[in-house]
């Protein structure tokens, strides 16, 4: 029988499992190619399972912006990720994206302590930034791509870079300049520690955030049972993106990882939950 309590308690475990599986899958694809099994080919820019094509929707936007034409098979290939985003929100980011998986390693306690020591970072109160910022940055990247006429999305798509570099390293093409870019951005995240890439810049996540309706999976907050707010906010302090799930304007920033729900469940208050229709309090 499906138990909601058990599901929320184990939410993080399921997520970690899927993250690990996705990372291993990205290593498995080039390894299979090395032994000449070529049924699953591709990277996170675009991947084929036998005849089924799946394309990152942000790559569709880039191709349309650059080539100024609509290639029908390309639009069809984006259906699966778009449907996933329509129903569950940006779960690709939180449950699959290898960049997020790697960044979550930074949250290990020793690394956090190290960061605090070295960079003298203070714990600041979480705040939900204005929605407009997100869309302005995304629009700026699209306009920039259009103006210089080069595949900027391809160059800065972290999941794509990581997956194609895994391929290049396994097959033996060696380390490319993309890896250096990835390393530089990753290091800057270590220094700044605000998850700015996923939160503001990443065009892959922004494209997925476009497909958001009233009925997309969201974090629902029930104020009447929220009890621990006065002295601590475990939901906010566990948010990887430094958001506060209790306040408005959580979206498009939130990528539905469910960590706030898990800790809320552990406090026993159960004020936060996943819902397709927002509760009245929000």
């Amino acid at each position, binding site marked *: 029988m499906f138990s909601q309590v058990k599901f929320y308690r184990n939410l993080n475990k399921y997520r970690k499992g899927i993250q690990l599986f996705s990372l291993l899958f990205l290593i498995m694809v080039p390894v299979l190619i090395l032994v000449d099994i070529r049924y699953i080919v591709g990277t996170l820019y675009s991947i084929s399972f036998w005849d089924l094509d799946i394309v990152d929707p942000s*790559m569709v936007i880039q191709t349309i912006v650059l080539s100024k034409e609509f290639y029908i098979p390309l639009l069809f290939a984006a259906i699966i990720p778009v449907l996933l985003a329509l129903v569950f929100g940006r779960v690709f980011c939180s449950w699959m994206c290898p960049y997020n998986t790697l960044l979550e390693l930074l949250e290990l306690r020793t690394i956090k302590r190290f960061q605090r020591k070295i960079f003298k970072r203070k714990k600041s109160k979480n705040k939900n930034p204005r929605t407009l910022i997100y869309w302005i940055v995304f629009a700026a990247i699209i306009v920039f791509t259009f103006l210089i006429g080069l595949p900027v999305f*391809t160059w800065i798509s972290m999941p794509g870079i990581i997956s194609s570099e895994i391929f290049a390293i396994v097959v033996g*093409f060696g380390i490319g300049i993309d890896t250096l870019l990835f390393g530089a951005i990753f290091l800057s995240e270590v220094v700044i520690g605000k998850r700015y890439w996923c939160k503001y810049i990443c065009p892959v996540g922004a494209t997925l955030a476009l497909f958001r309706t009233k009925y997309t999976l969201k974090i629902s907050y029930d104020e009447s049972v929220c009890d621990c707010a006065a002295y601590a906010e475990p939901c906010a302090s566990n948010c990887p993106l430094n958001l506060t799930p209790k306040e408005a304007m959580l979206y498009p920033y939130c990528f539905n990882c469910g960590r706030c729900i898990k800790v809320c469940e552990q406090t026993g208050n159960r004020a936060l939950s996943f819902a397709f229709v927002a509760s009245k309090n929000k």
Partner: protein
Amino acid sequence: MLKFLLNFIENAVSDEAVLRPPGAVPEKEFLDKCIQCNKCLQICPYDCIVPAGLEYGTSYGTPIIIARDVPCYLCMLCPPVCPTGALDNDLVEKEKVRMGVAEINEETCLPFSGIICRACFENCPIFRKAIILEDEMYPKVVDEHCVGCGICEKVCPVEGSAIIVKSNHNV
């Protein structure tokens, strides 16, 4: 300003057209459409498609073929896997591929200096059509049949190859 700078860099690093995988649309359109998903590299059973290095400037990471290393054997597996149409998905006949045209350097080509060699003629996949023998001796490329696969460039015994495929991919 930025565009000017990029053009400048591009002109500085790459002045020669590269061999693209079979079915590639014209270069400008190709660069607009290629998302560098590496599917064509991965499906190629001969591993002949490689990512372009930094010396190719802004087309860094896009698929190219270096014929002298591994030429294209025209298995025609890569055109259908391209998700964005940078490679023509409907291309199945190898005779219709136009990657480039081979050019013979008559100064180094062995038959022109009296040594019998039929390496390119015998290995050409468009047999007796793209490379013909004049006087049963001198190879000659027929431009309208040559697909530009580069097999002749690979098999040529002359150091540095006496027959080199010139990409027609800068149009």
